[in-house]
């Protein structure tokens, strides 16, 4: 079969993976659609957060609760993990061997877990200062938006673990490849959402 030019020019597997590439076409498009639906959820939570900015009800506000340092660290972690996931996709696409692929995925997973760890630490600290969701409309809005992102990252980590196990069980077959491409979409997408969060919630709150 002759290699058709890659039909789906975005994130893809490329011609070297003909069968998986074809399967990807529909799966990746479907996943894009799902992410856009998810994007609406985040967008609305952002909007809700903005409307609740002044609903402090006498409770603590952004100035007291947020810390620039940890927000910065989390941002760096997530951004770097996006980059390392990019390198993993790169290794997958150009067949750099399973070793490199697994290594980059492992690094990404560690970064992701570190991100979640720092975030949980943040929430814990906020709670210590009275920043709990039941305190005010503002804090409810915060705890709807930011932990939802964290939950997404956690699910993505779980998915990555599942895919790595699948790689051990089935080898690097079509199912794993298409899974990795979709997970990549999700991972980069979550970083984009985080750009919104650190800009609007943390920097906006501390500015």
């Amino acid at each position: 079969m002759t290699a058709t030019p890659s039909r789906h020019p975005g994130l893809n597997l490329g011609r070297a993976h003909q069968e998986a590439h074809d399967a990807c076409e529909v799966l990746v498009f479907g996943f894009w659609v799902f992410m856009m639906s998810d994007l609406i959820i985040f967008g609305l939570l952002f909007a809700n957060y903005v409307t609740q900015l002044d609903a402090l009800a006498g409770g603590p506000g952004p100035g007291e609760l947020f810390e620039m340092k940890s927000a910065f660290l989390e941002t760096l972690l997530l951004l770097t993990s996006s980059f390392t996931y990019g390198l993993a996709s790169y290794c997958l696409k150009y067949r750099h061997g399973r070793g490199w692929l697994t290594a980059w995925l492992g690094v990404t997973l560690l970064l992701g877990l570190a991100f979640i760890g720092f975030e949980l630490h943040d929430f814990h600290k906020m709670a210590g200062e009275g920043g709990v969701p039941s305190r005010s409309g503002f804090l409810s809005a915060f705890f709807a938006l930011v932990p939802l992102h964290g939950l997404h990252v956690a699910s993505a980590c779980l998915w990555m673990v599942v895919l790595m196990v699948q790689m051990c069980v089935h080898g690097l077959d079509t199912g794993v490849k298409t899974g990795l491409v979709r997970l990549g979409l999700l991972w980069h997408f979550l970083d984009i959402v985080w750009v919104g969060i650190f800009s609007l919630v943390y920097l906006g709150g501390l500015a």
Partner: protein
Amino acid sequence: MSDSQRQSDTIDENERRHELGSYLWGYGLALALTLVPFALVAWSGWPRVTLLWAIGGFALVQVVVHFRFFLHISLARQKREDLHLILFSTLILVLMVGGTLWIIFNLYGRMVPELLP
């Protein structure tokens, strides 16, 4: 390995370099676009409104950078369902978020002025 396979390998070589470059560029740009707003908030002492505009601007550019360099979305090629999808989603998002803010802040203004920023 067949002929066509070998041919496509040479094309792959260009693409491969291009793609690696894309990730590196993306990382570099995103890093810069993150560092600057953090630095501004930490040290610039600009007035709040200016800062907010600056943060918003950097965030927007960074989102575009992510789409371009990590997700490989570009305006160049012709059959781009994902691009259309993103643009349509953005339209809907702008309608929903913009409408929400417009409505809710207008309501605050008419009914609970103390909630206005």
